[in-house]
């Protein structure tokens, strides 16, 4: 008998890169389904184009440019595609989605060396690229088709942003939205912003499956709540209240799925908390004082750049060492 010899350990856990990525896709499904239900076939088209073109570009780059074995089987391109699609308004034309996918996979991921090497979250880079290149399309939102009078208008956050710029009290805007409706189905916004509850469901699934730890997400929520509480307390006419900030925009999607991306987040718990606090604080600063209505994407990308430093500074305590 030709026996097998290898170093210990001789068994392996159930985890694999593919299973972890598949879990993220499963966690994103409720929100994706919700958005398709609310927005209809055009949303489905955006998601499908985004996922297919992300996977397709990765296949092309690995096979034709790098002449390597394709890495699409690890499911990471599917996750990127799904996240990118959920970050775009359903009115985005298909060719624009493809440009976003090319930037996400081609520039943000593969130029750095592929999975595990990228500094910035690929889906966010793709989204921000579209945001600064085609601001008109990216910030005009159309209300859900299922509502009686589908309206072309703005998201709660961009209305607030306008109000601040015009000097009108924000309470006039925020009073239009009830928190219950925001939790279940936000009025206007990209797919990922439509149903906070579905997103939170996915987040709980990831935590239960031990795919991610909740610290980064919770610290973002806590910081956003605390920062807005302070500002709101100072001047409730100029600044929006904590609940509005937690529920509006892409905060939940960003905090649950983008900030917790393995590759672009710190590894230690302490590093994760600092990372989360940074994102929360920057988000609120951009929302309150920036010219863009939404700050989560920028905040995450800025904090992504600090991850190598956080990994170096925040190490867990070693056994038996002071």
């Amino acid at each position: 008998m030709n026996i097998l010899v290898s170093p210990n350990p001789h068994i392996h856990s159930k985890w694999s890169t593919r299973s972890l990525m598949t879990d993220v896709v499963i966690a994103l499904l409720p929100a994706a389904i919700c958005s398709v239900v609310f927005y209809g076939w055009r949303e489905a088209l955006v998601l499908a184009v985004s996922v297919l073109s992300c996977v397709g570009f990765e296949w092309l780059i690995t096979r034709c440019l790098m002449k390597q074995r394709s890495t699409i089987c690890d499911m990471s391109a599917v996750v990127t595609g799904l996240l990118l699609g959920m970050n775009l308004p359903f009115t985005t034309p298909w060719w624009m989605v493809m440009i976003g996918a090319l930037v996400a996979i081609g520039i943000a991921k593969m130029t750095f060396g592929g999975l595990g090497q990228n500094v910035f979250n690929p889906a966010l880079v793709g989204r921000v690229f579209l945001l600064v290149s085609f601001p008109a399309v990216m910030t005009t939102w159309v209300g859900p088709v299922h509502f009686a009078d589908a309206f072309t208008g703005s998201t709660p956050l961009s209305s607030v942003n306008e109000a601040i710029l015009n000097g009108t009290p924000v309470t006039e805007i925020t009073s239009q939205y009830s928190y219950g409706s925001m939790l279940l189905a936000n009025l206007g916004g990209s797919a990922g912003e439509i149903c906070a509850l579905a997103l939170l469901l996915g987040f709980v699934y990831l935590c239960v499956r031990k795919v991610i730890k909740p610290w980064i997400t919770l610290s973002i929520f806590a910081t956003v709540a605390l920062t807005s509480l302070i500002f709101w307390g100072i001047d409730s006419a100029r600044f929006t209240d904590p609940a509005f900030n937690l529920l509006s925009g892409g905060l939940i999607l960003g905090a649950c799925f983008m900030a917790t991306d393995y590759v672009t987040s710190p590894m230690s718990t302490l590093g994760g908390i600092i990372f989360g606090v940074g994102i929360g604080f920057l988000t609120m600063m951009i929302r309150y004082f920036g010219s863009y209505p939404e700050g989560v994407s920028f905040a995450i990308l800025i904090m992504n750049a600090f991850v190598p430093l956080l990994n170096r500074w925040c190490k867990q305590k070693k056994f038996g060492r002071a």
Partner: protein
Amino acid sequence: MNTIWTTIAIISLIGLVLALVLYLVAEKFKVVEDPRIDEVEKVMPGANCGGCGFAGCRAFAEAAVKAPNLDNNFCPVGGNDTMAKVAAILGYEVKEKAPMVAVVRCNGSCANRPTVNTYGGFASCRVKATLYSGDTACAFGCLGCGDCVAACQFGALSMDPETGLPVVDETKCTACGACTKACPKALIELRAKGPRGMRVWVDCRNKDKGPAAKKACAAACIGCGICAKTCRHEAITVADNIAYIDPDKCKLCRECIAMCPTGAIHESGFPKPLDKEATKARILERQKKEREEAAAKAAVISSEVEKSKPQEEK
């Protein structure tokens, strides 16, 4: 117009001040170095391989400049040419060294050495060696994961997919010795290239006793000592069940190759292939003659002794 002049004046002034600062700092932190270090470094191969025992070519140059002579400093990559240049710069004498080449001392190819188990861990000889003896019954042979190939900076080593053993490209090998250090079984030896590249060596390091070694590998040195008996130049010694050919004493007659029962002795660089049968027959003939001569001599001596004995008795 005035603004332009003021601007030019201010920028020039800033430039001057900064230049002064730079100059002062450069003066203050000036490192005085022997200019010969730079000169020596220029003639070095620049591979920074560490084959000389120093961290790189510059470290070698520094050490060479400091040393009283060049006896302990030798660049194996540049060889005698480079060392002659270094010696010329430093005004030292340099002893010519015979050019060396890496030689793999294992012939346990897939055909010669059947595997008895399969390795399933990280493909590294060092990892494998710390875990167990290897996937054949020979505990001394090549592990086949190519640590030596990875260690070679000059692309002189490659794994032969057919035999599973590393092959040295003589034209590229600089004898830096990185592979000898990388091999956990110490199978690679730096040997003198030999006259016109001709050399003979024992291609095995199995210290097991003959039958065990033979069972593990068809081409193993079984320590039988026939080669040592055959050699007329006392170049071959057998220790720990393994023969070794001293390259300094070897006269490249190749008689040992003809006589080795397992084919463990290898040659390289000879223009004509060895006619093993003819050589063997010639050696056996010679040995027979020697034995006969010795027997005749012994007979003469004993007869002389016998002759002398009765005389004494008388």
